[in-house]
């Protein structure tokens, strides 16, 4: 085997090792910088021009409550039928019983007499249990909220969140998941205990 002149590569090795050290340092610095990037989202503006219909949720006690007008109507109709059968056609007795009736639907008390005239006045039940999110938000997770989102058509519907002061975090998480499903969101801030009234005569809610 032919042998050539021997070359001393120790300087080259030192150089490489130095470069390696400097690179590690740079990567540490850029890595720290890269990991501190904040996710910033421009606040959506209110869309007054579209004709999407709202689907309601309430954020209360760091929990999510579904407000379904279909469920409310169904409960009111069932109660009407029940009272009608009980009073056997007596109008006065019907009105008397109606005035004393409160319904409970999805964590809300519903004023029955108001519901008869087409307005749903919802009174939050303080110890009602709704849906609460885990610490981390997972987009494709199968859960109660995901199943509700799956029933919403982004082209014709949007979500309106009634947000109580104690549940801003729940709202943010719920909104994130709604956005991921391409669903527009509206936010209606509420006071701690005020009643939510749905029906004619109120102000229109626009999506954002």
């Amino acid at each position: 085997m032919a042998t050539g002149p021997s070359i001393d590569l120790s300087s080259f090795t030192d150089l490489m090792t130095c470069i390696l050290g400097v690179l590690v340092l740079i990567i540490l610095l850029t890595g720290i910088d890269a990991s501190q990037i904040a996710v910033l989202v421009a606040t959506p503006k209110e869309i007054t021009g579209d004709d999407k219909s709202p689907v309601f949720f309430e954020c209360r006690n760091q929990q999510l409550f579904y407000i379904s007008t279909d469920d409310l109507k169904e409960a009111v109709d069932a109660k009407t039928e029940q009272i009608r059968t009980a009073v056997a056609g007596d109008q006065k007795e019907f009105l008397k019983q109606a005035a004393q009736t409160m319904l409970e639907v999805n964590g809300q008390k519903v004023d029955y007499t108001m519901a008869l005239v087409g307005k749903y006045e919802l009174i939050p039940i303080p110890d009602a249990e709704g849906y609460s999110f885990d610490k981390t938000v997972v987009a494709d997770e199968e859960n109660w909220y995901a199943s509700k989102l799956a029933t919403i058509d982004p082209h014709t519907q949007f979500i309106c969140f009634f947000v109580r002061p104690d549940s801003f975090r729940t709202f943010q998480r719920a909104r994130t998941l709604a956005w991921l499903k391409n669903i527009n969101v509206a936010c209606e801030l509420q006071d701690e205990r005020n009643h939510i009234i749905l029906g004619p005569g109120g102000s229109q809610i626009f999506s954002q």
Partner: protein
Amino acid sequence: MKMADVDSSGFQNIVLMLIGVLIIMLVSNVLTIISNPDNIKIDALITGVTYGADDDAEKEFIPPKFQNLTQDPVYVDVEPTKLTIYYKTIKEVSARDLMFEGNDFEKFLDEIEPNKERRYVVLLLRPGSAVFQRKLRQVIRERGIDVGFEPWETDRPIELEAREEEVTPEAPEEPEAQEEQGA
């Protein structure tokens, strides 16, 4: 004195490979930094809109589909009995003052209205301001100014960065500049 010959070619190969790997990591980091939304100058920036401050998933980036990228925001902090306007200067207006004509909020809307294609008002809603914000929202809507909302915790600070003043219609000869605000 004769020293022992050491073959360092194996070590050199490892060092070279390590340098290659580190360069790839460096490029990856630099690309991540370049894709920082700060650098692409999105206005109306609110952190925590998609994630809470201490969420584990905070660093994930979700392409927000509904964000308003066409207009610059002007922030109004709405508290139960007063509002604070963050526009050029910081101005506080009490709810009682709004009953009088020519109040600071009306003046502010007068300034925004000619630029409503470029600007929109973002109401930062503090707990307890539900009734007050509905009135404000109505007034803003009547002017045809776009509006957005963001619930904002009581103790959460508002941090804004301002650029140079924007060009007003009265001073068209000044060089064009924008005011950028990011919370």
